[in-house]
């Protein structure tokens, strides 16, 4: 354990986790997804559902699952939620209208059947009649209306769910009778069904929404497999089995209530603390352990490592195309060529690292192999490109210069980043003749520098099985006041991204995203680094662990051996 890990600023420690908070847009995934069955299933290193012997009567002495997480949720109101750590807990507390299997297929959730109209502006749902909220009130169409209306109300500022509903112009939910509803939008929303399966649009108890008001985020009441018990700030969130639960998704490994009696999410910002707690048995699952220790424990048989290579936008640097010197295409290309991704991930993450060469990771639907093969580590070529642009080291100090100016990159970084990683990255760039000036600042500082365009490159990643976040990160309308940090405007790219977001034809969409990947990589807008690989370390006692579609632990099916 290193001393700097005791800086409380290192809330999330792993480079991976850094982004959850650091780039406001990194975690929220507020956009559309491809319609069902066409996407590549995200690849887990483990088969998604191990399918134990199905049983309708789970072991009643199921025990307590303790799970250590690095960041604390800000709220447990699904309508107000944004971040990964929130969805992490919400998935056990709430159900949505539909449910989404690890292979991306859609299944009944709180709705047993559904029907969109032809232009995807109205969606009719037939609801289950046997569902009760944790507060004992029955689930009816009114709850769907109350939940959606709550999300777009003034009580919620800017959340994941609100972005979805507002962007697609939610107009109302019509409650025909207790078990038949129609959700209406004034703009086409081809991917609503898929979004309706995620945590952000899950359904809350109308009685609880009214009772708790602003405090609802600390007193969530859903229909999920676990009930909320308590939340001790900065310490733990406790959930207990919902004994009435009999409406789990059909693709789950079992039906009926959970095997576990309780789940305790412990908030442990230090990765080293999570590791120790796992060794002492105080945790049964630790999220994002230090990579080296995780491998060691797993090799010694004391713990099991599970990983999930996240689809979507891998860890990349978004390169500023407006600022000197990265406004020059040759300079941007040279940066990519200067980095040895294979060596980088091996050094930083050992066996747990996966290098990345494009703006999408290979498990993302519409991933384009060609774009990912444009650049491979080649220091000579990088040097040639820089020479061509007039950047030469004439004074022999190892830094190239042109017209008396050094080839300097301005790298804003957070103190949360592992120093070693930053040094590695800078080292590669320095070898090609760049000077890297690192400026460490807090999240808010990074945000204001980012908004002002004062950086050469910025870190980003975004987990999503569908490539649609590309629009948010690269469409030129998001340059000012948005997250298009490459500050690159190109009509063809804009068209491909806008089209990809609204087209309902699969093949057209796919072609759009292939075009987008091609333009982004040909223009060297990003510096690809590695695929984000979520790591969980767990006690061998934990059985039937699996990931959901987006890499959240699927706690419903977990059981414990004695």
């Amino acid at each position, binding site marked *: 354990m290193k001393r700097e890990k005791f800086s409380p600023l290192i809330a999330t420690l792993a480079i991976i986790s850094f982004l959850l908070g650091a780039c406001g847009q990194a975690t929220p995934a507020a956009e559309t997804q491809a319609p069902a069955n066409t996407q590549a299933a995200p690849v887990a290193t483990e088969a998604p559902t191990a399918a134990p012997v199905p049983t309708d009567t789970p072991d009643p002495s199921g025990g307590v699952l303790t799970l250590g997480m690095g960041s604390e949720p800000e709220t447990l109101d699904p309508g107000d939620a944004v971040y990964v750590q929130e969805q992490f807990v919400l998935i056990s507390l709430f159900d949505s209208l539909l449910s989404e299997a690890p292979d991306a297929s859609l299944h009944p959730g709180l709705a047993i059947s559904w029907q969109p109209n032809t232009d995807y502006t109205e969606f009719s749902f037939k609801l289950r009649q046997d569902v009760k909220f944790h507060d004992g009130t029955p689930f009816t169409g009114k709850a769907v209306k109350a939940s959606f209306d709550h999300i777009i109300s003034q009580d919620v*500022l800017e959340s994941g769910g609100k972005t979805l509903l507002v962007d697609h112009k939610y107009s109302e939910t019509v409650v025909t009778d207790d078990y038949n509803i129609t959700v209406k939008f004034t703009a086409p929303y081809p991917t609503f069904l898929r979004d309706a399966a995620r945590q952000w649009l899950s359904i809350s108890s109308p009685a609880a929404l009214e009772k708790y008001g602003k405090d609802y985020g600390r007193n969530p009441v859903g229909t999920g497999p676990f009930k909320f018990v308590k939340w001790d700030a900065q*310490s733990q969130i406790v959930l207990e089995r919902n004994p009435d639960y009999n409406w789990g998704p059909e693709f789950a490994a079992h039906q009926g209530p959970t095997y576990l009696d309780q789940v305790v999410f412990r908030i442990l910002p230090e990765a080293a603390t999570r590791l*120790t707690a796992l060794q002492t048995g105080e945790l049964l699952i630790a999220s994002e352990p230090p990579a080296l220790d995780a491998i060691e424990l797993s090799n010694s048989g004391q713990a099991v490592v599970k990983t999930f290579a996240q689809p979507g936008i891998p860890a990349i640097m978004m390169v500023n195309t407006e600022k000197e010197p990265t406004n020059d295409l040759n300079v941007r290309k040279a940066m990519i060529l200067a980095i040895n991704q294979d060596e980088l991930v091996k050094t930083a993450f050992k066996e747990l690292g996966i290098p990345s060469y494009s703006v999408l990771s290979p498990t993302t639907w519409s991933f384009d192999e060609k774009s990912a093969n444009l650049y491979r580590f080649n220091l000579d070529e990088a040097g040639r490109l820089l020479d061509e642009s007039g950047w030469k080291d004439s004074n022999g100090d190892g830094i190239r210069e042109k017209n008396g100016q050094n080839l300097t990159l301005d790298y804003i970084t957070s103190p949360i980043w592992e120093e070693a990683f930053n040094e590695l990255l800078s080292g590669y760039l320095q070898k090609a003749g760049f000077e890297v000036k690192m400026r460490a600042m807090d999240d808010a500082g990074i945000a204001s520098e980012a908004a002002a365009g004062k950086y050469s490159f910025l870190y980003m990643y975004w987990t999503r099985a569908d490539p649609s976040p590309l629009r948010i990160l690269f469409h030129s309308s998001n340059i000012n006041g948005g997250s298009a940090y490459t500050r690159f405007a190109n009509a063809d790219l804009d068209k491909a991204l806008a089209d990809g977001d609204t087209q309902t034809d699969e093949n057209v969409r796919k072609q759009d995203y292939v075009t987008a990947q091609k333009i982004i990589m040909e223009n060297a807008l990003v510096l690809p680094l590695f695929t984000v690989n979520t790591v969980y370390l767990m006690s061998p006692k934990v059985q039937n662990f699996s990931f959901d579609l987006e890499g959240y632990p699927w706690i419903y099916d977990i059981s414990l051996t004695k």
Partner: protein
Amino acid sequence: MVNYLIRRLLTSVLVIFGISVLVFSIIHLVPGDAVSAMLGRQKVNAQTVAQLREQLGLNDPIPVQYGRYLSKALRGDLGESILNYVPVSKAISEQLPSTLALAFSALLLALMVGFVLGLMAALAHGTWLDTLAMGLSVSGLSIPTFWLGLLLILLFSVNLGWFPSISTGSSLAALVLPTLTLGLPEAAVVARMVRASMLDVLGKEYITAARAKGVPQAMVIMKHALRNALIPVVTFLGLQMAYLLGGSTIVETMFARQGIGRLAVQAISNRDYPMVQGVVLVTAIIYVLINTFTDITYTILNPRIRLK
């Protein structure tokens, strides 16, 4: 005595008033627009900014704002966290007991261990006992808190399995390792103070006089020496309590324990100003209260002080 008390309490009120002005000013000292700085890259839009300005009352003249802040604060309303709308007073009252429990238990440990070691060293001055006690004390002083904590976790949690490494909840077992981590270095300081102070007093003429009169040794120590030797120690303890409240941040983080130290750090990194203001104000008030209490304790230990 009553005069002294009144004077002392009035000073405290003045100090607290001063602190409240400083704390209130934090938000106005932020370079640029405080609201934009506060919101950083959180989920916001223009409406949110306007709403927050209004909510914080930043459109009014500064004295009006201060008046409102003070009157609210006096009623226990310290505003709401801009992160999740939890009332600041509620967040603090959730976290404070844990910090206080840790600080007091560490102080108690420091006192007990420190006194025993310090007295032992003073009374056995120059012998191997003295050397042993002072050797322990130097080690205690030299070990960094985070390293001591790690060693304790390694020994008592990982190897022996006696105490939890995560200090969750209010169980006593969970308090043991954090208390040792925070309290042992303090004990070392107390031991040195007690020893030095005792040696000083034991060399005074009135002690020699008492001994000459044939007062039994125990009586000399307890009644004549110790009481006078305690004064610098008590002053020191008052200051140390403040240190313990602050020093608990590292320990709270290390053991993932609830507490206002962690709350403050989190609030600062999120630029959650109402929360930062609240934590600073409450912590400062506790400091003032402890110092006032310390000063009053003197007068009991040494009646001469209250006459001045």
